[in-house]
């Protein structure tokens, strides 16, 4: 920033004037006249016309100006700061967008699929142990989308159902991949104890949310759920997915790439060319 002196005839400001107030007051009185008495409106009209005349004379042929009032107060000049700028990261400058490095999205997706697979296996084992049925857990999960399932007996839920299998797998796959992606994006932002975050904290919070809303979202599951097993299966997912993502190699974001690289130009030497500018 710098400044330039104004032109030689000094600073001019528009003169104070009562015209706007009179015009506005007259206009309001005219409006008020509609609901009170025509005399009010007439007075309003006269006031408004007076205001308009003053206004017109004030701004024609040229706006009436006055020199700016003198003042002794002047701004203190802005001085450069001592000692330079604190940088967000030691080598990236203060304009760095953090995180500088992220886990690749693929790690989130693959981690999610892995976690989802292990979790399903775990949950199906629970179904086998508790009710001796391979399909029990799947049907319960499918109850989130299939409305009839809330009223079924336990025996009916233990039986094999095609639509239950399809919907259950669909929910499991979509949720696993979605949560895996979210993990992949958020984990780099957690400063420490990432595995704790992914394997304990989030599963517990998720379970709490489920506990509060299950009777609305999935009544079938709500009636038959065993919370210890539910939380345990969430933890299994968290451990597997978190582990997979954390062990994946981080990659830098595009923010430090050169423009030509970002738009995908692969000419050798392009970057060096750009750097000269």
């Amino acid at each position: 920033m710098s400044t330039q002196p104004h032109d030689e005839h000094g600073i001019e400001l528009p003169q104070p004037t009562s015209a706007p107030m009179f015009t506005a007051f007259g206009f309001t009185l005219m409006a008020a006249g509609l609901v009170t008495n025509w005399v009010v409106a007439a007075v309003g009209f006269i006031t408004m016309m007076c205001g308009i005349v003053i206004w017109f004379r004030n701004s024609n042929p040229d706006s009436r100006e006055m020199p700016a009032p003198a003042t002794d107060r002047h701004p203190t000049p802005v001085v450069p700061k001592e000692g330079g700028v604190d940088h967000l990261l030691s080598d990236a400058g203060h304009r760095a967008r953090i995180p500088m490095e992220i886990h690749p999205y693929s790690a989130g997706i693959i981690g999610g699929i892995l976690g989802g697979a292990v979790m399903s296996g775990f949950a199906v084992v629970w179904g086998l142990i508790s009710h001796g049925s391979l399909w029990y857990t799947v049907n319960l999960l499918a109850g989130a989308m299939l409305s009839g399932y809330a009223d079924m007996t336990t025996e009916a839920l233990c039986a094999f159902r095609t639509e239950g299998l399809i919907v259950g797998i669909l929910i499991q796959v979509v949720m696993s991949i979605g949560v895996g992606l979210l993990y992949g994006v958020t984990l780099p932002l957690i400063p420490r104890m990432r595995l704790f975050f992914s394997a304990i904290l989030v599963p517990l919070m998720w379970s709490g949310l489920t506990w509060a809303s299950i009777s609305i979202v999935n009544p079938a599951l709500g009636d038959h759920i065993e919370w210890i097993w539910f939380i345990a299966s969430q933890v299994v997912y968290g451990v597997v997915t978190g582990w997979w993502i954390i062990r994946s190699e981080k990659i830098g974001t595009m923010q430090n790439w050169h423009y030509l690289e970002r738009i995908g130009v692969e000419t050798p030497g392009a970057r060096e060319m750009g750097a000269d500018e």
Partner: protein
Amino acid sequence: MTTAPAMLAPPEAVPQDRMSNGKIGVTCMIISEIAFFGTIIAAYLFYIGRDINGPYPQDVLEVSVAPLKVLFNSIFLLISSVWIWLAIRSMRAGRMGAFIFWWALTVICGAVFLVGTGFEWYGMIVDDGVWMGTNLFGTCFYTLVGFHAFHVTMGLIVLTLILVLALLGHVSPRNIEKVDLVSWYWHFVDGIWIVVFFVVYVFGNQPIQ
């Protein structure tokens, strides 16, 4: 960046070409007026054919004759846009005599339009007995056409004021910006009339099937 010297000279700031404040202001005012008229026109279109009792527009606006009368009337308003454009052109060229001539012609044409509207209203109110409270057609017609006539009147007052000032010799080519902006407003009033004309006398006046 690694070799940045302590002080760097910023690039020279380039002055920009900008529209004048007055032009931006009047453009915005016209946009707000369009929003205003747009609402009333939308209400008019919404109520076409919804009347539950007559007289219907087809009875009052006389399908074949009246639109021609109004068209004749409208031509005065529309052509005044040309006159005001010529007036501004003369003023730009510094020919104040020509400016006054064209400007006066604009005022006359605008006044003729208003008188025509007055006759139309007189006929409708006295002969046909249609007023605001008669039915939906009356409500919408007088509101829409009335607001347009109100804007024409406002414009005419300002135009006449400038004409008087010009005759007294208070208007010179250095006032071109303000006078030009008044002409913008006049063009807007004309333009909106084309829309009103089609809505009221064409779409709203289809013969009953």
